[in-house]
C-alpha cells in the first residue's frame, strides 16, 4: 500500500513536471518573440529588450526552464503584463467565487447524478430509465453557454426567481451567496451529471445482477439500504473514476460559466487575459488548474482501497 502511494506520488510529480515543460515550451517555441509576447502589444523595443535581458532569454533553453521552474515552485507565477500585479496575487483575489462555484457544482451534480443513475438501474427498462438515458445523451451534447443563457432567460429574466448574474460573498448572507450560484452550477454541472448518471446506471446494473443482491433481497433487506449500502457501494470504483476524469470537463466549463454569469473568478481572469494578451496570467492559471486536476485524480486512485478493500497494491 505504502509502496503504491509512493509510486503514485512520484508519477504525479512527473506529470506535473511535464505539464510545466509543455507550458514553458508553448511560449518559447511559438513563432513570436517571448519577450515581445510578455511585454504586450504596446511595448517599446527598449522595454522588450529589458524583458529579454531580465528573463535571460538569450541563455540556453534548459537553463531558462530550470530558472522558471524554481520560481514557480516558490509560488512565483510571474507578473501580469496589464496590471503589473503578481499573477499569484491576482489568482488569490479571484479564488473564492471559483471555489464556491466548483463546490456547489460538484455537490449538486454528484447528488443528482447518483440519484438518477441508481433510479434508472433499479427500474431498468422503465420510462424513468429511458428518460434518464435520453437526458444523459442530450445533456452531454448541450454547450455550457447555451444552457447558461437558457437558464438565465427562463429563471432570471422571465420568472425573476433568481439573480441574472454576478457573485455575492458568503459574508453578505447565505441565501445571497447560494442564489447567485444555483443557475451557474446547473449550467456547469449538466454535462457532468450526464456523464456520472450514465456510468452509475451501468455499474449499478452489473452489481444488481450479482448473487449477493438476490440474497440481500431474500433475507428481507429494505429497498433503500439494499440499493445504497449493498449495491451503490460496490459499484463505487468506476463511478469515482469517472467523477475524477470528469473534473477536466468542469475545469473547461468553469471558464465559460464564469463568463456567462459574470462571476469574478479565476475563469474570468483568464478570459479577460485573452483579449489583453496577458500570457503570464494564462500560463499561471493553466498550471493551477492542471495541478488541481492531477491532484483530484491522485485522490481518486487512492480512494479505491477505501471503496473496495479487496483492492491491494
Amino acid at each position, binding site marked *: 500500500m505504502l509502496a503504491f502511494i509512493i509510486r503514485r506520488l512520484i508519477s504525479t510529480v512527473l506529470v506535473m513536471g511535464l505539464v510545466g515543460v509543455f*507550458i514553458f515550451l508553448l511560449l518559447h517555441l511559438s*513563432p513570436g518573440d517571448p519577450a515581445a509576447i510578455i511585454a504586450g502589444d504596446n511595448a517599446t523595443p527598449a522595454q522588450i529588450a529589458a524583458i529579454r535581458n531580465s528573463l535571460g532569454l538569450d541563455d540556453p533553453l534548459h537553463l531558462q526552464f530550470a530558472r522558471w521552474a524554481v520560481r514557480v515552485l516558490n509560488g512565483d507565477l510571474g507578473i501580469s503584463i496589464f496590471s503589473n500585479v503578481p499573477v499569484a496575487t491576482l489568482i488569490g483575489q479571484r479564488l473564492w467565487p471559483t471555489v464556491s462555484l466548483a463546490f456547489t457544482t460538484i455537490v449538486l451534480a454528484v447528488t443528482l447524478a447518483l440519484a438518477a443513475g441508481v433510479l434508472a438501474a433499479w427500474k431498468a427498462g422503465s420510462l424513468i430509465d429511458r428518460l434518464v438515458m435520453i437526458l444523459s445523451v442530450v445533456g*452531454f451534447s448541450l454547450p455550457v453557454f447555451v444552457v447558461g443563457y437558457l437558464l438565465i432567460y427562463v429563471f432570471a429574466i422571465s420568472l425573476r426567481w433568481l439573480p441574472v448574474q454576478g457573485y455575492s460573498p458568503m459574508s453578505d448572507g447565505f441565501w445571497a451567496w447560494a442564489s447567485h450560484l444555483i443557475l451557474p452550477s446547473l449550467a456547469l454541472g449538466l454535462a457532468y451529471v450526464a456523464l456520472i448518471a450514465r456510468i452509475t446506471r451501468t455499474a449499478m446494473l452489473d452489481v444488481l445482477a450479482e448473487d449477493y443482491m438476490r440474497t440481500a433481497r431474500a433475507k428481507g433487506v429494505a429497498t433503500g439500504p439494499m440499493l445504497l449500502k449493498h449495491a451503490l457501494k460496490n459499484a463505487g470504483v468506476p463511478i469515482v473514476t469517472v467523477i475524477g476524469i470528469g473534473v477536466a470537463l468542469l475545469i473547461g466549463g468553469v471558464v465559460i460559466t464564469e463568463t456567462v454569469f459574470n462571476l469574478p473568478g479565476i475563469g474570468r481572469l483568464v478570459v479577460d487575459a485573452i483579449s489583453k494578451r496577458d500570457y503570464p496570467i494564462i500560463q499561471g492559471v493553466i498550471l493551477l*488548474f492542471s495541478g488541481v486536476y492531477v491532484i483530484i485524480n491522485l485522490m481518486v486512485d487512492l480512494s479505491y482501497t477505501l471503496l473496495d478493500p479487496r483492492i491491494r497494491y
Partner: protein
Amino acid sequence: MTAITARIASQPVRSGLWHFVRRNPTLVGGAVVLLLVVLAALAAPLIAGDPIAARPVNRLKPPSAANWLGTDQLGRDVWARTIYGARVSLMVGLSVAAIAMAIGLVIGLCAGFGRMVETVVMRLLDGLMAIPAILLAIAFVSLSKASVGVVIAAIVLPEIPRVVRLVRAVVLSVREQPFVEAAVASGTRVPKILRRHILPATLPPLIVQATYVCASAILIEAALSFLGAGTPPEIPTWGNMIASSRVYLGLAPWTIFGPGLALALVVLAVNLVGDGLRDRLDPRLARRM
C-alpha cells in the same frame, strides 16, 4: 404481372432498409440530421441571404417571414448567419477529427510496437492530458494570430493523446494474437505487419472515436469563439454570434438561441451517430469520457 414482379423485387430492399432503420434508430436519426445540416451549409448561398450586410434600421427584429430567426443588434439576418456558421463548425469538426486520427494513428502504432518509444511517448501524453483542453487551446491561440487554421491546430493538440491511447490499446491486444505471431515467425517485416494485420483492427474503434472527437471539436470551437480566443470575430460562427449578442439576451433571445440551438443540434447528431456506430462496430468500446 410486371407490376407484381416489380413489387416483389422491390420488397426485400425496402424492408431491408426499414429493418436497418428500426435496428439503428440513433445512427439513422443522427445521420439524417447531420446530412440536412451539411446540405444546408453547402447550399448556404441558395437558402440564406447575406450574413454580413448590416441594416441598422432593422435591428433586433423578432423572427418574421423575411427574417426567419429575426435580426441581431446590427440588423443582420440571424438565419443567414446561423447557416453560414454551420460551415465553420463542420469544417473545424471534420478537420480536427481527420488530423487527430491521422497523427494519433501513426503515434499509436509506433507506441504499440516499439517498447522504447512506448514508455517515453505514453509519459509525454500523460502530461499533455493533464492540461484541460480548453485552456491548452486558449494558450495556443493567444500566442498566435487568430485564424481558423490556428483554432484547428489548437483543438487537435489536446485530442491526440486520447486517440493514441485507443490505438495503442488495440495494438497491444492484437499483437498477442496467433496470426501476428505467425507473421512475425515467417519473417514478415514490421511495416507490413502493421499495415496488413494491425491497422485493420484499429479502424472500427477509430471511426467511432473520430465521431466523438468531431463533436467535442465543434463544442470547443464554439466555446473558443464565445470566449474571444477563436475564429476572428468578423467571421459568422455560432460562438461569435452568441458572444456578440449576449447583452441583448433579454431584448432579443433569438440572437442567442438561434445559433445555440443549431450548435446543440449538430453536436447531438454527431454524438448519436457515434453511439450508433459504436453499437454496430464495436460493442465493447466504452464511451469516451
